[in-house]
């Protein structure tokens, strides 16, 4: 999407939203930086605008998701369905919170979803470490409390969230491995790592399956949740599915490898201290699976990027490969590797992206 096209489309969208009683804010963080160039790792491949606005009349702040792209529309519809089913899950022992849906409509070929903006006291990573841990643990426990086990449960969730079992994880990882190796045939180090990872996942399919059937948010990272008081709101419901209960943990823990090492260590230690050895193994296996996914995601982006973003994408492939190597060896990745990567990343990021990152997590 070129910037001229984007500007024209935004003008159209602004008018459309005006008719529906919403005004856009001047500052639109989601239109800037890498996010506008690369789509998220895990969400379905739809294109959409995520905009901040105000509801006319009461001036209430809202988040508007709007798209006329077929994939994007499917994603928004899927997300709405997931939000509805989430409220019906009577086999969940805890309650999930979602931001209030103000409007969901189809207008002039656009699917529009408007939700209340959840104000939070501060960004997740700005909170004290102990509080971050408590929030994360509460959110994971909430997800784990929904376990699709009976015939009725499975029927209810199959048509909405989607599900993946151990074989599904292995098949997906096989694809990440095959494609990564075919794009980078000379990267023997990566090939070796991916083959070792694949062998480990194959060996422990039983453990992966044992903890499957749980509700898990596969893009569980700070920018997909908001915390207000003691309530955690889940954003991006399209990233919910029934799978291994440590898949969401794995995404979060891998993310913290880069953003908050003590929290990464604390979560791994918590599972080690309080859950069965098989569960610690399940977390490790899911971390490996998600690392394979992110490595392929960046390898796939190599030919679609240029300049500094291309260099940064190369560095990302190397960095996540290093994390995969460490995880396979049951060791945390060397702090020096993380710090050096961060330094390079910050020199290669555009000013716009650096601005977008402030307070994002």
């Amino acid at each position, binding site marked *: 999407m070129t910037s001229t096209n984007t500007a024209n489309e935004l003008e159209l969208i602004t008018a459309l939203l005006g008719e529906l009683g919403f005004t856009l804010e001047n500052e639109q963080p989601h239109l800037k930086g890498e996010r506008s160039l690369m789509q998220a790792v895990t969400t379905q491949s739809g294109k959409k605008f995520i905009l901040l606005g105000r509801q006319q009349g009461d001036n209430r702040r809202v988040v508007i998701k709007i798209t006329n792209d077929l994939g994007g529309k499917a994603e928004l519809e899927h997300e709405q369905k997931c939000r509805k089913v989430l409220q019906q899950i009577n086999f969940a*022992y805890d309650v999930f919170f979602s931001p209030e849906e103000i409007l969901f409509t189809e207008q002039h070929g656009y699917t529009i979803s408007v939700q209340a903006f959840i104000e939070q006291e501060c960004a997740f990573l700005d909170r004290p*470490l*102990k509080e971050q*841990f408590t929030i994360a643990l509460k959110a994971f426990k909430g997800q*784990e*409390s929904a*376990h699709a*086990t*009976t*015939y*009725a449960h*499975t029927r209810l969730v199959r048509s909405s969230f989607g599900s993946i079992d151990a074989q599904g994880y292995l098949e997906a990882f096989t694809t990440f491995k095959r494609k990564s190796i075919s794009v980078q045939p000379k990267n023997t180090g990566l090939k070796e790592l991916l083959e070792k990872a694949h062998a480990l996942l194959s060996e422990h399919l*039983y453990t992966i*399956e*044992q*903890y499957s*059937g749980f509700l898990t948010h596969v893009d569980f990272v700070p920018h997909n949740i908001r915390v207000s008081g003691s309530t955690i709101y889940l954003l991006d419901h399209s990233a919910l599915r029934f799978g291994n*209960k440590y898949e969401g943990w794995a995404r979060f823990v891998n993310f913290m490898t880069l953003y908050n090492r003590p929290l990464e*260590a*604390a979560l791994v*230690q*918590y599972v080690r*201290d*309080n859950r*069965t050895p*098989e569960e610690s193994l399940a977390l490790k296996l899911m971390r490996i699976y998600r690392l394979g996914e992110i490595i392929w995601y960046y390898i796939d982006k190599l030919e679609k990027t240029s300049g500094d973003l291309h260099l940064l994408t190369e560095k990302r492939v190397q960095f996540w490969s290093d994390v995969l190597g460490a995880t396979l060896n049951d060791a945390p990745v060397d702090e020096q590797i993380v710090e050096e990567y961060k330094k390079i990343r910050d020199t290669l990021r555009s000013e716009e992206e650096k601005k977008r990152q402030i307070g994002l997590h």
Partner: protein
Amino acid sequence: MKIVIATPLYPPEIATSARYIKELATRMAKEHELTIVTYAHLPEKIAGVNILTVNKRLLLPLRLIAYTLLLWKTACANQLIYAENGAAIELPVGIVALFMRRPLVVHMGDLRAHEKASENWLLGKIEKFMCAQAKKIFSDIPPECPEILPFEPIPTEKISSYNASWDSHVEELNKIFLHYD
């Protein structure tokens, strides 16, 4: 003593009653020969305990029949049935205890299931039917295992009290079981 434990929930289910049964079996396996009959796909294993499962994904009538048959077969080779309450096992347990005349001890550990039974006529009748076959019904449950949290000192006192509470629970159960040995 040979005991069959009938439970609707068992880990990896995370319900309190599921964790209770696993902890109970782990602790009692040293003194008794235990078999757990539960609804599960891939249950967590316990050294020295036989775990038999019924596929929970079967349609309700089919899984009730499958559970009843499995419990019947297992009870034949055991001296006592220890049942954790819950609608999914109450009818099979009641039937097996009634017709096989095996002593039945019922543990009302799942308060949520008990509440549901008191609100629903049919579930209430099923629960009463199972309880009518029981030689002993009790509801004592040791506290949940204290969590070890990364930024807090290890709760040694709570862990000691948790272990003591379990010791006394197991002792109480052993006294009950001894009566039917």
